Structures are given as structure tokens and as C-alpha cells.
């Protein structure tokens, strides 16, 4: 028997597999397909203070081994998330959930986190300082160490729950930003969010996405994600949640070897709704194949 249990800031997960924010809604669509309580946890759709429709459509473009989205943080706003979505979510998922939060000012981040802090279902606050889709929003916080630290501090001040800062890969120096968040009190780092990308339609000769650019993710970005997880995990002393292109049990292990304590899975859910279940079921076999008895033994193993 192998051990797949891992711990994030005192919260023990049955396994490190966590559907990533924005690709798993609030869980219901997937709960129709399988018992989502097998998941380590899941990160629900990015929540903002105000309700948002998001960006105009088309919001989706296909890429070799990946996709671009410019959903733009569509969500009903934190009040409705708490009053309508969380009670429904509670019916299908009984473990601590990860609340993904975005904002357009430090006050908004604090406001939204303060409200979510009171929700017993929420185990971890995952603060997205990285969404590349919002013109005057997340992007700027995540590309500057000082701004990322300021968000971290503001959020830490209003919650006792563990705060994980989710970083954008669209930066020159990911390590300096991660370290600034750690110094500002972050309990963990989650990375990577999507990379800024674009596709152009040869027929219309215009960008496929209405918003021109969007967030590129899927297995194509995996090598960049592994690299950044490795660099950040090497530089900080707080847990790292790794993501970006993960789509197999092997990928989960590779992310953990790079330094991730848990692993999120995004775009892969959209093309194979059973992917997280399949990975969880496959993990013990792959662990045995590579002589891994306990996943905790391999976290950051590639650095040794």
C-alpha cells in the first residue's frame, strides 16, 4: 500500500489531486459524473466582490496541446457565491474546499476574503493575483513583488484561514514575487496561472478571441510550469501547489518532484471530465512503478 495523503497548512488531503479554479465550476457538473469526494480538494471558480459577466465571446481558442480562454472571471459575486453556490456545493462535496478570489483593488481582495473567511467549508483561500484577462485587474498585482505583497498582507489581516497566493507565469522573475508573498505572510504559493497567448483565424484574419488575447493553458505549458514550480519551491519555505498542463498521474509526480505538495488540474477537466478520477485511480500504480511508497518522500525530490 502506498500513501497518497499530503498536507497543506494543516489540512490533510487524501491525495494531491485538485481541480483548478475555473475549470470545475462549483463542482455540480462533475458530481453528476462521479463522486467528487474522492478529490483531494477542489478550487472553485474565481470569485470577485461584484458579479461579473466577464469578457465578450468568443472566449475560447484551440492551440496545439492546449487552449486559450478569456472568460474574464465570470461569477455571480461573493455574496451570491456564499448564499447560493456554497450551500449547493456542500451537498456534493464534504471536504474543505479552496476558495479562489480575485479583485481589482486591494480593498476588493480584502472584502471578498473577509466574507469567505466565515464559511466553514472553505479550507484555503487561493488569492489569484494573476488573471491575465481583466484589463485593469489581477495582472498588475501579480507582476510586481510589492503589489503582490500588499495583497497578501491585506488578505492575511482579514482571515485566519491559510492564504495561498496564485501567481502568473507572465513575469521575468517569478522567484522574487513568490518570495515577496512569503515575506508578507502567505501560507503557500499556487502556480502557474495561464500564459498570455493569442490565435488568429486565417479565414476572418482577426484574433479568434473577442478580447484578442487570453490565458493559454493545457499540456503545452507543462514544461514552463515545472520550471517555475522548481524555482519557487527552491526559494520559499512554504508549500507550493503546482499546476499548468497536468494531465496524468505521471505529470502529478513530476510536479511533486519539482517541489509541489499538491497539484491542480485545469484545462484537462474540460476535455476529459473524468481526468481527475482517472489520475487518482492511476496514482498508486504509477507510484509503484517508480518505487514511490509515500508521495511526501518525493516533494522537491528533483532538487536533491
Amino acid at each position, binding site marked *: 500500500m502506498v500513501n497518497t495523503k499530503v498536507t497543506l497548512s494543516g489540512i490533510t488531503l487524501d491525495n494531491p489531486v485538485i481541480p483548478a479554479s475555473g475549470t470545475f*465550476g462549483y463542482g455540480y457538473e462533475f458530481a453528476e459524473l462521479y463522486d467528487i469526494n474522492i478529490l483531494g480538494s477542489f478550487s472553485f*471558480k474565481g470569485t470577485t466582490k461584484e458579479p461579473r459577466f466577464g469578457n465578450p*465571446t468568443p*472566449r475560447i481558442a*484551440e492551440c496545439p496541446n492546449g487552449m486559450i480562454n478569456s472568460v474574464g472571471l465570470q461569477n455571480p459575486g461573493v455574496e451570491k457565491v456564499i448564499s447560493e453556490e456554497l450551500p449547493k456545493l456542500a451537498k456534493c462535496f464534504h471536504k474543505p474546499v479552496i476558495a479562489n478570489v480575485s479583485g481589482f483593488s486591494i480593498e476588493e481582495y480584502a472584502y471578498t476574503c473577509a466574507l469567505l473567511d466565515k464559511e466553514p467549508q472553505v479550507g484555503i483561500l487561493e488569492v489569484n493575483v494573476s488573471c491575465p484577462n481583466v484589463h485593469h485587474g489581477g495582472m498588475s498585482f501579480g507582476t510586481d513583488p510589492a503589489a503582490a505583497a500588499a495583497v497578501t498582507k491585506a488578505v492575511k489581516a482579514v482571515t485566519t484561514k491559510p492564504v495561498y497566493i496564485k501567481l502568473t507565469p507572465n513575469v521575468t522573475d517569478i522567484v522574487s514575487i513568490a518570495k515577496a508573498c512569503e515575506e508578507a505572510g502567505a501560507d503557500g504559493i499556487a502556480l502557474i496561472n495561464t500564459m498570455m497567448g493569442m490565435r488568429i483565424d486565417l479565414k476572418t484574419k482577426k484574433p*479568434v478571441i473577442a478580447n484578442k488575447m487570453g490565458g493559454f493553458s*493545457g499540456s503545452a505549458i507543462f514544461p514552463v510550469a515545472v520550471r517555475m514550480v522548481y524555482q519557487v519551491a527552491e526559494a520559499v519555505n512554504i508549500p507550493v501547489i503546482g499546476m499548468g498542463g497536468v494531465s496524468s498521474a505521471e505529470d502529478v509526480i513530476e510536479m511533486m518532484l519539482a517541489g509541489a505538495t499538491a497539484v491542480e488540474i485545469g484545462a484537462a477537466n474540460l*476535455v476529459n*471530465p473524468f481526468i481527475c478520477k482517472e489520475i487518482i485511480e492511476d496514482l498508486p500504480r504509477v507510484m509503484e512503478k517508480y518505487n514511490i511508497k509515500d508521495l511526501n518522500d518525493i516533494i522537491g525530490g528533483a532538487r536533491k
Partner: protein
Amino acid sequence: MKQSIFTIQSNEKLTESVCKMVLAGDTSAITAAGQFVNIQLKGFFLRRPISVCDYDENTLTILYKVVGKGTEAMSQMKAPHKLDILTGLGNGYDTSVSGGKPLLIGGGVGVPPMYRLAKNLIAEGKHPIVILGFNTKDEIFYAEEFEKLGAEVHIATADGSVGVKGFVTDVVKTIPDYTYFYTCGPEPMLKALSDVTTTSGQLSFEERMGCGFGACMGCSCQTKYGNKRICKDGPVLVKEEIIW
């Protein structure tokens, strides 16, 4: 929704660019005309959404137009190639509100879902009038199949090579006493129909999709009844809710 493996039984050209594929597999998740399936193709990241044209307990028929690399790849496939398909996606058409003489209007690759819809309405004892719009004679497909169902079929071609010269709206204007309408086709056609029709109706929309089953918010639109996901809350919307 169900994920299952289908086996291609046949795959043939109906016109220069439109193909008909019949697949064997588990169709139990399909509950209404106007629903769609989402097809995984090797070498492509996203699935391809295609309307259900017809189905029975263990076969599914789809009609698709070759417009890009994915549909091109589909057109090359032969029996008994296997495909991973998500079935039972979308709301589909509600036939309970059709009245006795509904209009069914399909434009181009909006024609396929009208076929099962016509079948269902006829089975319910109603008298659908089918209007099919194409650019030209050579692009016409499935007109005979609709006739075989016993439906009244009108054809409009942009160049007048068959039927009424003009658009489906030109035909709609000549039919005085329909009770409701159902349509699927390019968005400008849907808009024109919404303007020209005198009854309520249901319109099926297309949008680029991430998941096709409601998880990603990739296909959202704003309606008078709130935000909707084309893939889950649609693709069929009622005339009254649409914000053009």
C-alpha cells in the same frame, strides 16, 4: 451527460463539403432533439460539438460540414474507427409548446437538428412545415429525408437554383398560419427570423466551446433571463429572452 466510445458504422459525403456519419454506441443520455454531442479527435485538444441529427437506442447520426482541420479529419475516418464522445449535452428543443403547425427552419449546417425535431413533432401528431435554406442547388442535403418523414418541405436558395430564390425569411413570410417556430443556423439568419416571425419560437445558437458541459463559462451569453451558458442552458434559447 455520458462519456462513451462510439464505433463509426458509415461516413459518407452528402455534398461537396457536408458528410453524414452514423455511429453505434450508448445513446441513453440523449433526451431531446436539438441536443448536441462533443467529439474527441486524436491530435486536437478541444472536442468538436456537433448536433444530434437523429438517434435510436444504439445509433447516432450526425451531419457535419468540413470547415477546418477537425472536421477534415472526421471526413477521412472509416468504419469501424472508434470515437470518444460526450452525449446528452444541451437542453434541446421543447416540443410541448409547438402548437399544431410549427415552422422548422434550418440554414446550412443548422439543418441537422431539425430532422429529429420534425420526427418527434410528427410522432406527436403535429404538422411541421420545414424550411431549409442553402446557398445553391449543389449544397442541398437531407431535403428528401424530411419529405420521407411526411413533412411539408420548402427550400430557399440564395441563387434561386432550387425553390424560392432568397433566404428562409422570404419563405417564412409566405406562410400565414404557423403556430410556433424552431430554428438553427447562422446567427444573422436567427436574427432575421426573430424579426420576421409573428409567433414565439426557439432558436439554437453556436459558440466556441471549452468543455461543452457547463464547467468553464467559455460559451456564456447574456439574456433577458440572466447569464446563460450556450452549452448547458442552451444551445436553444427562446425568442423572448434573446438580447440581439
